[in-house]
């Protein structure tokens, strides 16, 4: 794996706390994601994965924590600023713009990297036209990249489930993210679709985009990720390479419950 060490991490979050009333949803959680990694965040239901994800992307305000993106501090205060800073996300329950075409969906992703104003659009200035052309070209390129270019002019809601996932990833990539954050991308997918998703994600990694992956599917995470953090009850219980994490007794307890760890057995099942 090309888990390059040395250069500044793409994302560093440390000491993140988030409390909902009496529930400590996140307690001193931190991750360091290096360039070119696929970083997995796993944990049983209610472990705080999605809370952490929503804090990172500005949907929830953390009670405390420090955040750095590409070496520069950023404050995840408003989602649109997070996108501008360079984190693009997808949603667990796909959130496309259903009535817009696949192409238009990806073109919306270019919004944050383009500048044309309303006046420019009304007057069709040369710079606006050039920008519009570039947006379209880039969007088509990305549809091609995720393999759904032939549906460019289809309304997003008419696409098959797996293609909608791909479209969401293409839309996120259109923002030129430093970090692509995927919230359970394999949810609801069948085995074939998971396999092709896995190919797509390794492809994206080899093209230099860093990925944060929140996933339920342990098999997918273990087979794909360079590093993994395991959360349980809002705390980090393990961090390391997939192989290290699988041997960790706290992880086995969290996933299987109880103290009677059937040594190796469940972990072996999880290995692809």
């Amino acid at each position, binding site marked *: 794996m090309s888990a390059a060490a040395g250069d500044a991490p793409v994302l560093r979050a440390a000491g993140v706390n988030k409390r909902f009333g009496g529930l400590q949803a996140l307690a001193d959680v931190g991750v360091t994601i290096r360039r070119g990694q696929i970083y997995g965040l796993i944990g049983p239901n209610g472990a705080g994965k999605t809370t952490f994800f929503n804090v990172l*992307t500005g*949907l929830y305000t953390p009670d405390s924590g420090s955040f750095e993106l590409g070496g520069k501090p950023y404050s995840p205060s*408003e*989602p*649109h600023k*997070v*996108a*501008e800073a360079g984190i*693009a*996300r997808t*949603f667990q329950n796909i*959130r*496309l*713009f*259903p*009535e*817009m*075409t696949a192409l*238009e969906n990806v*073109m*919306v*992703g*270019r*919004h*944050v990297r*383009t500048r*044309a*104003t*309303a006046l*420019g*659009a*009304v007057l*069709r200035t040369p710079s*606006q036209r050039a*920008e*519009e052309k570039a*947006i379209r070209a880039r969007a088509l390129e990305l549809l091609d990249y995720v393999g*759904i270019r*032939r*549906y460019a*002019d*289809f*309304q997003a809601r*008419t*696409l*098959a489930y*797996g*293609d909608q996932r791909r479209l969401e990833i293409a*839309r*996120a990539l259109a*923002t030129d993210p430093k970090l692509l954050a995927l919230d359970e991308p394999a949810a609801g997918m069948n085995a*074939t*679709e998971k396999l*092709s998703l896995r190919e797509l994600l390794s492809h994206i990694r080899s093209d230099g985009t860093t990925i944060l992956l929140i996933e339920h599917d342990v098999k997918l995470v273990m087979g794909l990720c360079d590093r993994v953090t395991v959360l349980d009850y809002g705390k980090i219980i393990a961090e390391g390479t997939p192989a290290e994490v699988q041997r960790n007794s706290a992880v086995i307890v969290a996933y299987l419950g109880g103290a009677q760890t059937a040594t190796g057995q469940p972990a072996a099942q999880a290995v692809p």
Partner: protein
Amino acid sequence: MTLFFPSLRNKPAAAIAATFFVAAVLIAAPFIVGTMGNAGVRALAFAALYVMLALGLNIVVGFAGLLDLGYIAFYAVGAYMYALLASPHLTSNFPALAAMFPQGFHNSIWMVIPLGAAVAAFFGVVLGAPVLKLRGDYLAIVTLGFGEIIRIFLNNLNAPLNLTNGPQGITLIDPVKIAGVSLARTLDLGFVKLPSVYLYYYLFLILTVITIIVCIRLQDSRLGRAWMAIREDDIAAKAMGINVRNVKLLAFALGATFGGVSGTMFAAFQGFVSPESFSLMESIIVLAMVVLGGLGHIPGVILGAVLLSLFPELLRHTVVPVQEQLFGRIIIDAEVLRMMLYGLAMVVIMLYRPKGLWPAPEHGVNPSTRDGAKAGASG
């Protein structure tokens, strides 16, 4: 020319031909309708004004998905703007102003149109800013209140300072003057005489065409896509880096601009404005034009505006004579019948064409129901 006929994108010659045909029909229309009197041409001129209004509201409701029930307030703002700046009302009520402008206020339309647009846009932002977090029904109620507040202000601002002359309205408003030619008089071009209503019709037609071009260009732009994105899913739009607050405010401001401009035209055309022209019913009718035509689809909105503005005129001229012929007396008043038919039309449209008479075309079929698509999709 393909701007107007996107379906003819690959046939530029056909698009040019179609544009010329439509232009010819629109230019000839007053001469055809005018054979039955000027009332028909007047109805056409109003239809053009309503197209402008409906397209402006379509930016807010159709593109950005913000239900606005007080849109007519911007029309009122534009109309009163022109009324105050091009009538003796202010100078006759404020001696200080009369001393400064002994000739009274007679401002050029070229000054008042941009001013009306700017003031309406300002009011658009004033309305937009406090309602940014509201959606759906809540937004509708606040905008409805805003529309009524403006009307009630206009109705009551005759004391202590007589700014709007209250319910009596403002009279003696200057007609539009372009290059020294007053649109209030018949223009003799030598080969043809153009009465005042014809001139106004052509002016409104030009403004409508400009409005259509602006709307189409906005729709196909970065901003237009951002509007549609927040309409479809504002959380996803935020996550894509769209500043939802600014984009919504721009929708309110730009939508209001068109309302303001049509308001100035209305005041100049009528020569008289009073608060009763800006009732809640007017807001609802403009919204009905947008929804009935096809929310967010420019040709549909134009169709809706033309139908709903010409329809009452048609009724007015047919209902009474027909009843007199049939029964010898008038059983149902035209105005009552109009409201009944509006209601009926709404119910029928919502039942059988919920997306409007001419909705945006559908793109694509469900790939999962198509042969081999499933295998292709995951491969």
